[in-house]
């Protein structure tokens, strides 16, 4: 931990005869924030995510051409250069502008799916971890069964069955990520339920719902936050994969990273690499950015 000398003075000054000079909660938060803001992985992660969030919110600010129309006066498959920074694709559309516009769908779908998974996963994890017993046995086995099948296979089957619309894709990924979150939350709840404050709550006749929601939940929020950030990375990855396989939930001409990779990768052998590599890099950087942020938040919370 790095802190300035002034900070130590305040810690020492606050100690009196009875209170132990363990840093106050505010202080701990402050130190954690300081640690976070100084961590290189958090800074890099924030810059990457910042760029993509900006692209998602106001693509018009960043784009250079209409992403759906071919750039006038520029031939298709023009390599990266002054006019079109990242080149043009086989239909003559600007790759850079398509990548910028492609951020929005994925930045809506991935967090939405993660929120669904986090909500139900946390709920399931809390209840199974607290009550245990045969309900827990059954639910845990079902969750493990889902986890044992590759997520992408299940996703393809479900999306195929219900149609490749954005709500279906979000719902599918949300559903598929429930088990992993539920399992982590269940483990944390199990450990928490062993502690005596839970017994004390039972002894004063608290209802189970109160114990789970008000006593245990605040103590496992950190676990949930970390798990959610990790899942967010996976959700982006899964969404891009589904789009690559043609299950994008939009029109075939809409800018979409996974779709663009799928439509252009065959040309890589003809040395037209740019329409494939730039959207692929976009997927990669977004996932890495999320993971960098997740790791540094985790580290700061643990410190």
């Amino acid at each position, binding site marked *: 931990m790095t802190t300035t*000398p002034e900070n130590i003075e305040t810690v020492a000054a606050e100690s009196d005869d009875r209170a*132990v000079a363990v840093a106050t909660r505010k202080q701990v938060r402050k130190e954690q924030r300081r640690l976070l803001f100084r961590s290189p992985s958090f800074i890099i992660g924030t810059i990457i995510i910042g760029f993509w969030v900006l692209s998602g919110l106001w693509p018009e600010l960043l784009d250079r051409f209409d992403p759906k129309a071919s750039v006038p006066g520029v031939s298709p498959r023009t390599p990266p250069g002054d006019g079109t920074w990242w080149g043009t694709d086989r239909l003559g559309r600007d790759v850079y502008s398509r990548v910028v516009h492609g951020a929005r769908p994925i930045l809506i779908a991935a967090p939405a799916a993660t929120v669904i998974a986090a909500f139900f996963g946390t709920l399931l994890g809390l209840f199974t971890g607290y009550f245990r017993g045969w309900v827990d046995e059954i639910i845990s086995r079902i969750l493990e069964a889902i986890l044992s099948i590759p997520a992408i296979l299940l996703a393809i089957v479900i999306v195929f069955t219900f149609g490749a619309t954005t709500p279906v894709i979000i719902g599918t990924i949300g559903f598929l990520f429930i088990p992993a979150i539920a399992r982590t939350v269940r483990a944390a709840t199990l450990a928490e339920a062993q502690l005596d404050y839970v017994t004390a709550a039972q002894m004063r006749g608290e209802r189970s719902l109160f114990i789970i929601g008000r006593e245990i939940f605040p103590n496992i929020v950190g676990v949930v936050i970390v798990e959610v950030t990790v899942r967010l990375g996976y959700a982006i990855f899964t969404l891009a994969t589904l789009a690559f396989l043609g299950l994008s939930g939009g029109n075939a001409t809409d800018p979409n990273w996974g779709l663009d990779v799928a439509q252009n990768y065959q040309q890589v052998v003809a040395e037209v690499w740019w329409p494939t590599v730039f959207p692929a890099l976009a997927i990669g950087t977004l996932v890495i950015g999320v993971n960098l942020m997740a790791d540094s938040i985790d580290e700061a919370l643990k410190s």
Partner: protein
Amino acid sequence: MTASPTATDTAALSIRDLEMAYMVRGTPRAVLRGVSFDVRAGEAYGLVGESGCGKSTTAYTALRYLPSNGLIQGGTISVGGREVTAMSSKELREFRANHASMVYQDPVQAVNPVLKIGRQVAESFEVIGHSKGEAKELAHKALQRVHIADPEGVLERYPHQLSGGMLQRVVIAMALASDPLLLVLDEPTTGLDATVEAEVLDLVRELRDEIGAAILLIAHNLGVIRTMCDRVGIMYAGRIVEEGTVEDVFDNPSHPYTVGLLNSIPRHGARKTDRELFSIPGNLPQIGDPLPTCVYVARCPLATDKCSAEVPPIVARSDGHWTRCHHPDRIDEVPLPDEVSTAHNVGTEEVIGVHGVSKTFHQRSGDVPALVGVDLGFAEGETLGLVGESGSGKSTLAKTMLGVHEPDEGGAITLRGRPMATKSIDRETESIRAIQMVFQNPDSALNRSWTVRRILTRAVSKLTGKSGDDAEAQAVQIAHAMQLSDRHLDMRPRQLSGGLKQRVAIARAFAGDPDVVVADEPTSALDVSVQAAILNLLAELQRDVRTSYLFITHDIGVVRYLADRIAVMYVGRVMEVGPTDVMFEGPIHPYTEALLSAVPSVDGEAENRIPLKGEIPSPKNPPPGCVFHTRCHRVIEGTCDKIEPPMVEVSLGHSIKCHIPPDELLEMQKVPWVDHSVPEL
């Protein structure tokens, strides 16, 4: 700083002016502020003090066994004439392998759970250069040396298959593998039962003469130090404030801190009806606090202007006994704890009764009867002390009374004669209010994301039915009664010290003005001085509001101080129950006799220990006849192993579950017990 009176050349361990600091958030913070002492070969030296005073740090520094943020800032450490502070990392490794050993507090964490005991013990011989074959042979011998029954069998077992006491023996065997010059024991018996503790201490005492190593024993239990050590150093805030032989220091303390420590434990059979325990005011200074003069000045009852202006000199009291104090002659002026003036009334009506309660846990591997036919009752304002080894069912009884476990059909828990619902969730508010609990570990017992205010307000509103501002006002009032100040109310548990946390836990239990409070070892995690404050608080609350306590503990001194009656449990059964003063006169159950004899005394009373053979039996397969016959030193062959003894009333309110008639038992217990059996090998 001057050298201590012992000559350096004869010492196996010699520490001089040791200064050590931890880097915390970028600043070095002093922990040891000039520690000097010597331990001769074959001598046992004890270090005592409150937690945070630097005693463990001294031990670890002696082996240069420090975390990455630990810095030795000055002074010398010499072991067998070699300077530890000057060693290269290779020399240090060689030194630790061959010349120094350490035994840690928790044996479970000191061994590798996935390796067999044999492998681990042999490894400690391989490290010092023995071949694999020799090491195996030596491992076997090493286990024999620490008196482990069936060494062949133990070598083939994994750590989880051994009890804590056995594991600590294994750890000691490993520590002795290299025939070390220096053996450091860091709270070696703190996590163990009193009976097991006594056995481990016996072993160390026996080995002491054999090995000739310098032993440095760290303990916060003054009784352990008194019975184990030749000399003792009293540590405070990173400095030794008094040193001498254990007899000199404990019988004739010359530093106000030593006096404070000794007055804070119940001694010489003191009772709550006589006087309070002494609680040293204030807290230990934080690490890194500047302490330019006397380290103890802020808490010292004798402090004068001189104390805060000048560093106290070392004052010799007798040969080898010195104190670091300006006023050793005024030591008698240290005030004694307050005498208790108000009478302590125990009512006659039974408030809460436990009638024939049994509890069987149904597990996949079979039924486990954890409680068998327990009968106990509490009068108003009475304290019932519940003692027994771990695994005897004390906590199960507590949790069954509170409705966490549901007792088997047939028994009843009554509140003023009326049976209560068996599960807490089904109990009426009145029944829940009537009985509450204080847990052993306040860290676990308090919700760490709640503020003190919220913890108490919730308890008040749940137990009394008050709500909103009323509940909060009462919570504040209760907090004040527990000597918590307003600024503590908005803190969360991690910001409070151990003693303050336990006060919050007690406040929560008292939120609804309960009739009975179950306290499960509420002071075992606390320092003696803090323990004194908590025990005083409990006794005071009892005088004021006439609450009854079920006080679960393994500390006989504490039980004797606080309890009006004592119940002794063994394998889920009550073996003896009776008034405290009567129990200490006898006759008593042989199990109680063994328990009492296992307690190391601070007063240097003659020891007459009755060894308890083997482990407490599992409640799953209780021995036939009297459950205690397998370990009883007064067993009657043919009777005790076949017939379960009845509960015999010896005198009014004093019952013993034993086949031996009480008068015979009394005669037997007048003569000191001599162990005629062949020692276990």
